[in-house]
């Protein structure tokens, strides 16, 4: 993991100190650290000379800016109506069985976090989920088991 002060310094250098740089900077931190801690929010506030409340207000608006520590891979299962009708519950049940965690939880080894998300635009290929930036659709229990297995294998390599 890179030096965090350096991380923010680099992001500020890249995007600038204007108010509108806030979101890209927060995104940059999420890409590195998976979540936005209280300390990071204050560092960003200081770097942009805005208040902590403003950073918190912006960060909390976005579902994909997590304020709680997350695992290395974040699984987001679409919970919106089409995916729900096409078997979202089975997808979630399979992931729960594979990883031994509930929605909102992280595996003890810190590898996976299971979350739900609003529509990710895959209604015609429902049910769908995201793992980090990757879309997986037309899911069923077997497909889900294979995907998770693959991620677990990658870890061992």
């Amino acid at each position: 993991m890179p030096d965090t002060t350096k991380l923010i310094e680099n992001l500020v250098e890249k995007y600038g100190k204007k108010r509108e740089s806030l979101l890209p900077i927060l995104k940059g931190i999420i890409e590195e650290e998976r979540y936005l801690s209280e300390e990071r929010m204050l560092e960003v506030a200081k770097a942009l000379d805005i208040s902590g409340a403003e950073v918190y207000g912006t960060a909390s608006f976005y579902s994909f800016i997590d304020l709680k520590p997350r695992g290395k891979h974040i699984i987001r299962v679409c919970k919106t109506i089409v995916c729900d009708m096409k078997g979202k519950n089975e997808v979630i049940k399979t992931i729960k069985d594979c990883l031994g965690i509930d929605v909102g939880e992280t595996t003890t080894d810190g590898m996976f976090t299971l979350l739900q998300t609003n529509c990710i635009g895959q209604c015609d290929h429902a049910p769908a989920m995201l793992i980090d930036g990757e879309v997986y659709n037309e899911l069923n229990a077997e497909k889900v088991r294979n995907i998770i297995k693959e991620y677990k294998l990658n870890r061992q390599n």
Partner: protein
Amino acid sequence: MITLKINNTQVEVPEGTTILEAAKKIGVEIPTLCHHEDLCVAGNCRVCVVEIKGRPRLEASCATPAENGMEVFTHSAKVRNARNVITQLLLSEHAEECTLCYKNGNCELQNLAEEYYHDDEMFIDLAHEREHRIDKSTALRYDPSKCIRCQRCVRTCAEIQGVNALSAAFKGKDMMITTFMEKTFGEVVCTNCGQCVVHCPTGALTERTYYDEIWEAIEDPDKHVVVNTAPSVRVALGEPFGLEPGTIVTGQMAAALRRLGFDSVLDTDFAADLTIIEEGNEFIQRLKKKFVDGEEVALPMITSCSPGWVKFIEHMYPDLLDHLSTCKSPQQMFGALAKTYYAEKKGIDPAKIVSVSIMPCTAKKFEANRPEMKSSGYQDIDAGLTTRELAKMIKQAGIDLTKLPEEDFDSIMGESSGAGVIFGATGGVMEAALRTVYEIITGREVPFRHLDIQPVRGLDGVKEATIKFENCKSEYSFLEGAEVKVAVAHGLRNARKIMDQIKEGKSPYLFVEIMACPGGCIGGGGQPIPTNDEIRMKRIEAIYREDAGKPIRKSHENPEIKQVYEEFLKKPLGEKSHKLLHTHYTKRNRY
């Protein structure tokens, strides 16, 4: 000019006027919640919607400019129906505990609910689902379950104060107004100024009240309860009793306090005069150090009377704390003397004294509870009450303020000059200080007609004045011919302009007055609600009327001030002053 019709009545308004303002001009009151004349337009509550002929949808009148030939209907059946639904929707998310609410009887949402009365709930009550987490910090109280998310507080904190302690967070049904990470006001950059309280249309933001404790102390025969009242309380206390803003009720207020049972009714204005003596001498001492002794001293010197401002500089400019006068505020000077000088003179055990101040301010509550404010050996001020809290106590006692005779303050520490009174208005401390400082240096009265230093008066955000010292007394010859530039700022966003200049080393001033609240203390966070510029001006005019009517206009001529130096303090900036009347500041984290 633009001509339009509102409810079939023709009205002519300048370009840029909103429909809301145009309607007001012909006596049509459109209800509002998120709108406040001090703040930018938000248009989020939708209560002020009106029907405009030819437009398919209702429009928010606070955010829609009037146009030529427009035909507007402000209370048509369609509008009334929409407003009714909007009101009921707002109420469905609002904890309707009116009888348990401090703002009962002074709530804009309650007024609207009265106007659009419904005998049954139209929507499911969602308020109980919202978190009932009440922030009870020393000065302020926040109950999110009463918040209608109009963001008047957020805009106040940003636009008037430049503090941004509050922000809207999360979204949709979860959207809420909060501090950083939902911490309490005591833990974040909040200055406790209370402007959010003054601007809140409901009971979500209020001051933390202390009057129950004060009632208890009054009823305890072993306690000697002294009360002191700030200058701006006497020009605003009439408002909760139906009097016009700007009515002076000094005498009635003293009478009311006596009838409430306070053992001694004294005046913060006395301590304001004392502040001028100490602060004026501190200023001259700084000038001497700089220009005669060649020492490094922080100039401009900045006033320290406003506890909201003091907390602001502690958070925002911790490296510039040397610029703050070391003088305590009048409230704290009063407190330190009440349990020493007053106790001694009256032969009362200071342990039995309960010292209460009535302030236009919520930050005074925080100030009274600062750990360093115990120089008398006890907590110098036991409680700071707002003007609103005093009004409530007077009502609880069944007293009609308007029918009371005018009475005087008690002695000692009840006498004040006009200079002490004007502390309540922006520019007042500067004016009071100059009346004394000029006379110390030259032996003559400050060269303004009737002692009125007009350039530092009024509602301009930053005011400037230049005083030229000529024919100085021999010991102040180093100031001969000096043109001293001074500045006055009110509202913390204006304070920033002055502070940024100082930070860059470009400040042309030697002496600066800063007050946290717009208009100074008369517009304080503890004053009667509503407050706007019109009301601020009326209170300010009343302050200057009170000053003009005082037989003594200069702090150093107040006989009780002469007495306290002769009998107790000995000399300004002396050993006792240093111990009791001066303080130090704390560097705080901004984030």
